[in-house]
């Protein structure tokens, strides 16, 4: 009896970003900007044969109460130049980055992704993020020009134009013929002429088609619009749903949308972001996880988090003391700019928190640690490997994007101790089987583009 091959797990690493998940106060915490940090994480991920390295983006420094937020890591590089540099120190690892769809134009961004795909031998991926707020817009020529409700419409048209541009070069357009003097095969590059609601783009694209044809597309929005957009357009969903039950629900929901969009099952990979904390025993791992949480939420961070919900200044309160005795300011203007506001009406939330805090004897800091915990895998390497494998085999996800809390070495022990266990049980690759990110993710390449050669003359 032949055994059915196990469903293969897909894994990426997420370079630590600028929220409080990243601990900078630990003495082992390295630079957020030196190339050596990106190189460290990318090389380690490639040694473990991971699918991709992921880098998020920022277009405006976060503000809290009208001032630049200084409690978390601040500052990040431009996404694509770092990915291009990482391409120089890796051979197989996918290179995924967030690029915003509101404050970029198709001609330029399509050129950049085609260039990255060529420069990396077919490893580029684009995480589509649609933020369109006026706060971020203050750094750009058109300001906050895009109505919130149109952000996915613009993103869809942007991707459509980019795809037209990538398809405007045949796969084998570059066919140098020293004798005839033609560098490109005649007829292999076509003008495009796009006139749409958001874009008017005309001309001959100057950049060759990359080995993948199109870069892999990731999508990260969780709203119904976001999920529909992913089902219609993306190859990978960067999901928030890392717990088993949430994951199963999300997985089924997305598969249904995928089918409704007329696409094959498996043509869209669902990858939640998750943290992993391992220890030699369950108790050791749990203690380490608690320690990390306390590092991630120092007192000032706890106060700042509550201020986002309360909508008012709370610096008079002691983070190690009880919850503020004042009511939230429901009509308060957005006190934090530059990140999504999660709580629309704070009053029921605050009431529930007061109950929890009272029942558990929690301080402000204890409460914030508790309510901002996002789960993640905690345990011995065997336990964690079992859990990751179970999630994927039982379709709570197709894999995970691993997020370290320390730059750049926060995943070193996870890669060393957990990934080999996944390889052992046949759920994860021991070697890369192909050169491109599409190969690693099991995604089809877009149809080859080749038009008949123009008649001579």
């Amino acid at each position, binding site marked *: 009896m032949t055994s059915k091959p196990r469903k293969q797990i897909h894994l990426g690493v997420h370079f630590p970003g600028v929220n409080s998940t990243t601990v900078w106060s630990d003495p082992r915490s390295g630079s957020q900007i030196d190339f050596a940090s990106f190189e460290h994480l990318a090389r380690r991920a490639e040694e473990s044969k991971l699918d991709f390295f992921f880098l998020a983006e920022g277009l405006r420094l976060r503000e809290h109460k009208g001032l630049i937020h200084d409690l978390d890591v601040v500052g990040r590089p431009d996404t694509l130049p770092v990915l291009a*540099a990482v391409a120089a120190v890796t051979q197989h690892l996918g290179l995924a980055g967030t690029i915003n769809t509101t404050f970029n134009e198709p001609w330029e961004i399509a*050129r950049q992704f085609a260039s990255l795909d060529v420069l990396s031998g077919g490893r580029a991926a684009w995480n589509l993020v649609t933020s369109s707020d006026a706060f971020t817009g203050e750094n750009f020529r058109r300001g906050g020009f895009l109505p919130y409700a149109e952000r996915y419409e613009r993103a869809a048209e942007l991707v459509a134009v980019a795809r037209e541009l990538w398809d405007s070069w045949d796969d084998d357009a570059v066919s140098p013929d020293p004798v005839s003097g033609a560098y*490109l095969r005649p007829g292999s590059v076509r003008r495009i002429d796009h006139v749409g609601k958001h874009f008017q783009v005309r001309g001959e694209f*100057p950049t060759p088609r990359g080995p993948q044809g199109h870069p892999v597309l990731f999508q990260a929005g969780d709203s119904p619009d976001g999920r529909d957009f992913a089902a219609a357009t993306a190859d990978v969903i960067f999901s928030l749903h890392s717990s088993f039950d949430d994951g199963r629900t999300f997985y089924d929901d997305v598969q249904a949308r995928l089918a409704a969009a007329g696409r094959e099952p498996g043509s869209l990979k669902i990858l939640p972001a998750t943290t992993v904390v391992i220890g030699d025993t369950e108790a050791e791992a749990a203690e380490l996880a608690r320690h990390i949480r306390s590092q991630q939420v120092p007192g000032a961070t706890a106060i700042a988090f509550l201020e986002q919900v309360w909508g008012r200044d709370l610096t008079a309160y002691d983070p190690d003391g009880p919850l503020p005795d004042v009511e939230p300011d429901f009509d308060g203007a957005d006190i934090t700019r530059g990140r999504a506001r999660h709580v629309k009406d704070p009053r029921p939330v605050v009431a529930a928190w007061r109950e929890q805090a009272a029942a558990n004897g929690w301080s402000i800091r204890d409460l914030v640690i508790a309510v901002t915990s996002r789960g993640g895998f905690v345990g011995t390497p065997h336990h964690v490997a079992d859990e990751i494998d179970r999630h994927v085999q039982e379709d709570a996800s197709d894999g995970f994007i691993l997020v370290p809390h320390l730059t750049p070495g926060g995943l070193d022990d996870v890669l060393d101790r957990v990934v080999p266990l996944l390889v052992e049980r046949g759920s994860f690759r021991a070697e890369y089987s192909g050169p491109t990110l599409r190969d690693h993710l099991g995604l089809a390449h877009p149809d080859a583009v080749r038009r008949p050669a123009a008649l001579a003359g």
Partner: protein
Amino acid sequence: MTHLHLAVDLSGAGAHPAAWRTLDPDQRRAAVDTLTGHVGTAVRAGFDLALLDDSFTLAPAADRAVRGTLDAVLVASRLAPVTSGIGLVATVDTTHTEPFHVAKALQTLDHVSGGRGGWQVAWSTTPAAAAAFGRKDVQDEADAVDEAREVVGVVRDLWDSWEDDAEIRDAATSRFVDRDKLHYVDHVGERFTVKGPSITPRSPQGQLPVVVRVGSPESVELAGRVADVVRIEARGVDRAAELVARVRTAAAEAGRDPQDVRVLVDLVVVLGADDGAARARRGLLDGLAGSAFAPATLQHVGDAASLVELVARWAPVVDGFTVRPASLRADLPLLADQVLPALRAAGLAAAAYPVRTGSTLRDSLGLPRPASRYAAV
């Protein structure tokens, strides 16, 4: 004797339009591997910087030699980790781009290269580029150059928007940065406004060297106003001297020390073991192209020794040269093996890289490193 600044243009397969046609079958190699090899040769030669051209549009469709282009900042970033010593100067447009993106892209090139990044400023006046973006009408030279001036200004503001010591990692007060050292640039111009600060911390050079190619009178004024390095085209020393004087005058009129601009003349080279061999190469390339290549600038067709003599003759007139090898594959090795060593022996060029490894492009150009303009005095 002052050392000349020496740049090399690594665009395409070389300056001559038929250069690619003499490539050996090895041209199947990935473009990036070939270019990495060329940069390695340029490092061996000891050039101060390598220039990568870029454009949003293909050369005219009638030119069947068009090769397609890759984004220059990404090419430079891809080259950075596997090269050392040499500056990597990328061409970036100012007409159809977002200044905020331009600023962080170049800062990031500087970060990944350890301080070897540079910016060759470009602007677009073609209908093709305007149609590719569909946001603006075609602009004339004066308008596009004026916009370039505004973009360079705000990009430089953004490069300074983080003071060098903004990152403090003060665990006692839970502060990663000192927000007093992060500055809104609050640029309010006729064409656009930019709030800032940059998303990216101050880069190793602080301010990347800016290169401007001179053509139009408007570009002379721009060069005098903003450039660290100016590229001129001139076939003879008198023309070169005239252009140098105009650039220095423009710098003075902009309130700068005229000697702060380093004016380099473009020099196309077709090299050979002797003058006859060089002329034969030139004939072969012209034959393939179907017409004589007539660059609008100084050209040397000959051996290494006569090139060194030419450089010595021109040295009093210019601050240096942007060498444009007719064929990168054929001419770069000769530059590395024969020409630049001879220039160094003659005291015309600075010491080669082993002495300078770890230095920045500003160091190579003799430019001091400025503190942020926003830093309290």
